[in-house]
């Protein structure tokens, strides 16, 4: 867990969100390093919404002893770079896979967090990824939920992992 995440844990953020943020930071760094050979630098988490504005948003829901969703929010350029690196292909080929590549990254992030939370005694299932691509849209959590925005830097690109957790504080 990074220093920034540790500092955040020491604040008054809800405990389960803190635990999940720590897991999200770990797995996101690992997945970007392993699958796309990119170092992502973690910034300072914020424990409030809304979901960051982005051109490509890949969300995966989870349900079980915890419920909510995780989304990966990136610009179109960042999504294309991720797709290209993930596929090991040309920009032309990668362009057709931008949605699926973002979905796969979100799927791996959620799946890896699920594994970490399972190790902590939780029982979770995850949904298939849903990817939204556009230029003028926003989302809002409609219920009383805990939220966290985890910002990362991938070179010149900013990317965000957003967490919504319902029920457990």
């Amino acid at each position: 867990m990074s220093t920034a995440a540790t500092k955040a844990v020491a604040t008054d953020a809800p405990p389960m969100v803190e635990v999940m943020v720590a897991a999200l930071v770990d797995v996101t760094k690992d997945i970007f390093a392993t699958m796309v050979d990119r170092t992502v630098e973690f910034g300072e988490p914020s424990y409030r919404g809304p979901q960051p504005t982005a051109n490509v948003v890949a969300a995966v829901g989870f349900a079980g002893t915890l419920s909510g969703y995780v989304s990966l929010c990136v610009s179109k350029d960042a999504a294309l770079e991720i797709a290209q690196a993930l596929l090991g292909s040309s920009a032309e080929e990668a362009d057709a896979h931008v949605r699926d590549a973002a979905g796969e990254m979100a799927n791996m992030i959620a799946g890896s967090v699920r594994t970490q939370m399972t190790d902590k005694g939780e029982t979770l299932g995850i949904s298939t990824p849903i990817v939204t691509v556009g230029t003028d849209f926003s989302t809002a959590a409609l219920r009383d939920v805990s939220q966290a925005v985890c910002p990362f830097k991938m070179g010149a690109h900013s990317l965000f992992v957003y967490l919504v957790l319902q029920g457990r504080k």
Partner: protein
Amino acid sequence: MRVLVVDDSSTMRRIIVNTLKKLGHEDTVEAGDGKEALRALAAGVPDVIVTDWNMPEMNGPQFVEAVRSQPALAKTPVLMVTTQAAKEDVIIALQAGVNDYLIKPFTPEALKEKIQSLTRKS
């Protein structure tokens, strides 16, 4: 060596196929779910099957059980590549007849080692 890659995500199939090509395995066949894979298997037995877990129609363990029920495919090495990493998931996969297990995310080196290990054993 022929590898059958079974995954409902065309992107994940492309990732695996591209990785295999870089490792020198050019002969690959792709299927988008278990049923399509069984049709591909009826046309020819590959040297290795690489399959996902979460797929529509027939999930990974169900597909592997169907593979193992066919005498001609009883010994075909099967590698499951999945985010399902809990201990009980691995047990379910092994009980279904999977030979080895690779958890996403994975490095090309990890895929190479698993494929080489499976083909050495078979």
